[in-house]
């Protein structure tokens, strides 16, 4: 598969193909169309940090700004945050859960 890697200067937003539902302490991403998951009925559960990233996808912040905001919330090393956030966003892009704001 030709994979698109998330880029720090881009602004990403959730696509219209999914909705986010809070179930207890988890944020669950529910696909509305086929072809997002590897199997029917596949959902995505974001952990606390993943949820913070999701909340910051406001259509204004670049990924770099998202990371900067995360750095204010967490004490982890910037490189670690960068690696994890780019990894997460690449995964969400691949699955068409997020897209580049047009």
């Amino acid at each position, binding site marked *: 598969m030709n994979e698109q890697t998330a880029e720090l200067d881009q602004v990403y937003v959730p696509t219209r193909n999914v*909705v*986010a*539902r809070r*179930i*207890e302490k*988890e944020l*669950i*991403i*529910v696909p*509305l*169309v*086929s072809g997002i*998951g*590897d*199997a029917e*009925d*596949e*959902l*995505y*559960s*974001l*952990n606390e*940090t*993943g949820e913070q*990233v999701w909340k910051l996808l406001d259509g204004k912040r670049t990924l770099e700004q998202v990371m900067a905001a995360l750095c204010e919330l967490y004490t982890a090393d910037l490189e670690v945050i960068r690696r*994890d956030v780019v*990894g*997460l966003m690449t*995964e*969400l892009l691949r699955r068409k859960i997020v897209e580049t704001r047009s």
Partner: protein
Amino acid sequence: MNERKDSSYVRRVQMDQAPVFAAQQLHHIDIELTERCNNRCVHCNINRPEQDRGAIERELSTKEWKSILDQAAGLGAISVRFTGGEPLLRSDFVDLYRYARHLGMRVLLFTNARLIRPEIGALLEALPPGEKLEVSIYGMGAQTESAVTGVKASHAQAMAGVRELKKRKIPFVLKWTPLPFNAEDRVAFRKWVKKVMGKDVTPGLNALLELRGRRDSEGANRRIREMRLAPQAAAGMIRAWHPQWEVKMRAFMARMCVPKGVDDRLFSCGAGREASVDAYGKLQPCLLLRDPVLTIDLREHTLEEARRDLFLSLRECRAVHPEYLKRCARCFLRDLCEQCPARSWPEHGRLDRPVEYLCQVAHEQAVQLGLIAVGEKAWNVKNGAARLAARAAAQLPDADISGIMAGGEGKCHE
């Protein structure tokens, strides 16, 4: 299959197996959007005229349905069934459908397909329901179908609806109700299903006609009784309808039949566990059971309160009818029989009187399964548990038993 691992931030889960959903109060809600229907089927247990002003005025508004959907989603529901009547008659259907989907709920739609026109097809294609639609067909020609539905155009419109679903690759299942009017079309229906689906699938079967749940017309109920297949014929049809019926029933026995000795509980089923709401906002124990004593008005109570109160009250219900205590309460065929308060209520106006017809069908099936001898009464059998164990097949973990029960829905068991 993609081999990629989940990242530390995101975890993939299956909706039906995710612990977070399993722990929720509510998993599914049934919503009867309207009792009105554009068909006037002779056997129907709920339909009201399409333009019934009184019904229209009493039905919940769009805003009220959205509030109930919000509450259901808040309690964890992952799916909703829109049924009726004909749910597509609601002018706000598209709005409510979109709303439910954007709450992250899968939608199961029960329809006669007459209103599956291109705009509805386009909606279902662009925003898939996530569940197979269930489409009821009553005949293989205009004359047969209109004899059932009372509407000349119903067949042509239903066929157009099915073509629309097929063209847009929207998953659906077809269902059949055997009636005196369409008996000669049954074989043609099975052939047509195979052609439409492109493979030999088993369509749904509504073999045991239910009486009107509102108990609103003794004349209509008498006609429904007259149209029922005789118990032996019904049992035979169910057996012939499902490939490997006996194998599947043995798997069903192994999984679902738990002899309980003498049991006077009325609701040992799943009634009240999920939510079932009628067109006017009354929470019912299940879609079929409309006894007003057991309903709670969601215009006055929240869904959470109403479910809690209803569920608790159902668990305390005990049978007192002497025939029930003599027969059903001691019968080892309980889990194989369609007898339940929802069937008893329309027949007798009470929850605990045996429905003779269902008892006879269950006995016919039990004979076919080798559980009892001809003429034997199951409630007199002392070694019922041993008989079930001997006939059940515990080594069929993968047998698909959905829809195998006589009524066809097969969703009543706990």
